[in-house]
């Protein structure tokens, strides 16, 4: 005689905690190992950081920030530094957009029959440009461009060219093919096909990528000067090096204000666009 079936599904035991086929278990195990190994190998000086001694030195350090130096002469200097930072980010982004577009064309397959021989080589260049941070570029460029905002501008331009080039190439490849194909069927050359068919379609997207990177670059440019590449960062590194904490506090305040302003403006602008 067969067992009567239960009217509701019977309770089952929970699955075993570890199972060799359970991906999440291996992932968690790996993660825990990575975290433990990291903390273990770094010999972090928590004792030194959490001791009473460190706390009092931290307190003294923070106390020295007050009062911030708000004398007109110095404030003018900070304003000039902020303007320099803004100019660096704007010019760097513009150069990067031009260079990125120039690199995006050989990095993309423009139409079905395009052999795109240079595609992978150019993408390799773009990836190399992109994976070296602005600050490392700035430190490298100091050797040939000298101290000052010029090196910073070029550093921002190089890194951002890598980022934008890749985004632009993807936008160009994903653009609708119809208008380009129509022109090509009439025997129009590649350059004019790009100018009159592809570019008008992708231009809004390219603009929005560029503006987004500009916003990022303002933040990056503020700290770029720490290695000597101009702007607020250079002022910060200089005055902090001389232990002039009042002046340092003013510069930090200016940086914070700039970042918050950029964030707020971009938020408001985005919200206005969404409507």
């Amino acid at each position, binding site marked *: 005689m067969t067992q009567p079936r239960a009217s509701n599904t019977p309770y089952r035991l929970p699955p075993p905690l570890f199972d060799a086929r359970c991906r999440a278990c291996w992932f968690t195990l790996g993660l825990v190992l990575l975290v433990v190994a990291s903390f273990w190998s770094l010999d972090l*000086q928590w004792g030194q950081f959490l001791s009473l001694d460190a706390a009092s030195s931290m307190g003294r350090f923070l106390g020295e920030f007050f009062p911030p130096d708000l004398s007109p002469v110095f404030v003018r200097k900070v304003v000039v530094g902020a303007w320099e930072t803004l100019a660096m980010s704007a010019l760097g982004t513009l150069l990067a957009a031009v260079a990125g577009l120039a690199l995006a064309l050989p990095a993309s397959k423009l139409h079905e029959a395009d052999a795109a021989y240079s595609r992978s080589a150019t993408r390799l260049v773009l990836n190399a440009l992109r994976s070296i941070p602005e600050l490392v570029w700035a430190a490298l460029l100091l*050797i040939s461009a000298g101290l000052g905002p010029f090196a910073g501008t070029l550093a921002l331009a190089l890194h951002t060219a890598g980022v934008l080039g890749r985004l632009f190439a993807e936008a160009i490849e994903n653009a609708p093919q119809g208008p380009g194909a129509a022109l090509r069927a009439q025997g129009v050359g590649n350059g004019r096909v790009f100018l009159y068919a592809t570019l008008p379609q992708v231009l809004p997207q390219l603009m929005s990528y560029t503006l987004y990177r500009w916003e990022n670059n303002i933040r990056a440019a503020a700290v770029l000067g720490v290695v000597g590449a101009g702007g607020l960062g250079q002022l910060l590194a200089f005055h902090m090096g001389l232990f002039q904490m009042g002046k340092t506090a003013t510069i930090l305040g200016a940086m914070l204000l700039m970042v918050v302003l950029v964030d707020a403006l971009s938020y408001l602008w985005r919200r206005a666009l969404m409507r």
Partner: protein
Amino acid sequence: MTVAPLPMDSALRRAPERDPAWLSRLFWIVALLVVLWPLAVATEFRPWVLLERDNLKISAQFIGSFWPLAHSGEFLAMVARDTWRTVAMATAGVTLALLLAIPLTLLSTRVLSVSALSGRMARGPFWLRQAVRWLLIVLRSIPELVWALVFVRVVGLGPTAGVLAIALTYGGMLGKVYGEILESGEHHATEALLRNGSGRLQAFLFGLLPTNAAELTSYTVYRWECAIRSSVVLGFVGAGGLGQQLDNSMKMFNGGEVASMLLVFIALVALADRVSAWLRKTLG
């Protein structure tokens, strides 16, 4: 009597001799130059400096010394050690950032408010949530490099400053974005739990977390990848790792070492990129 062709007609047939849009093109070019001029002045934009004889000689010498790459056993061992230290700094920093971000997220999420269930949130909890939000904004607005500069002064050179800098900035970023993820999703289940008398933590663990777990994890993995990039940069202000060695070699104009470390760095970033993309795909 023959009708003279209308002037309109002939104008339509012939292509215009001049670019019809030349005036607006000229205007925009001039406007661009007018805007660019002060920017170029402010950034001391003088590209010809790069081509001056002395500068060209120094640059050529430096770039020429990139080859052969430094490859002595001792150097490679040092690079391997510092690469691990860079990854470890990023991992430890993100772990501490999580410890900071999770409680702050729980405090600031509007969905977990009991008083908001019946209309408006009570005044106390509202201001508490607002205060935590402001704290998160301040934490993430100060770049990690500035935190590192400050901490290097307090705890001295070494990875502790870097880990703390990453922990604070990334704590702010994670907290803010976690809050946004939790509030943008579906929260009927959470509300139902809260209305039926479960605690806030229970509502979070059984309602809010399961629906958003994949997105939260994938954002965390993405931030870990970013932290690896930024922990190299932190080395430049003395937080140890690959960045500090790179800085040292650059100051000594040792092109071979700089080139090999840059290659290692590019490979590391590419690897982190792959691992993070794979993890995010697997986690959904």
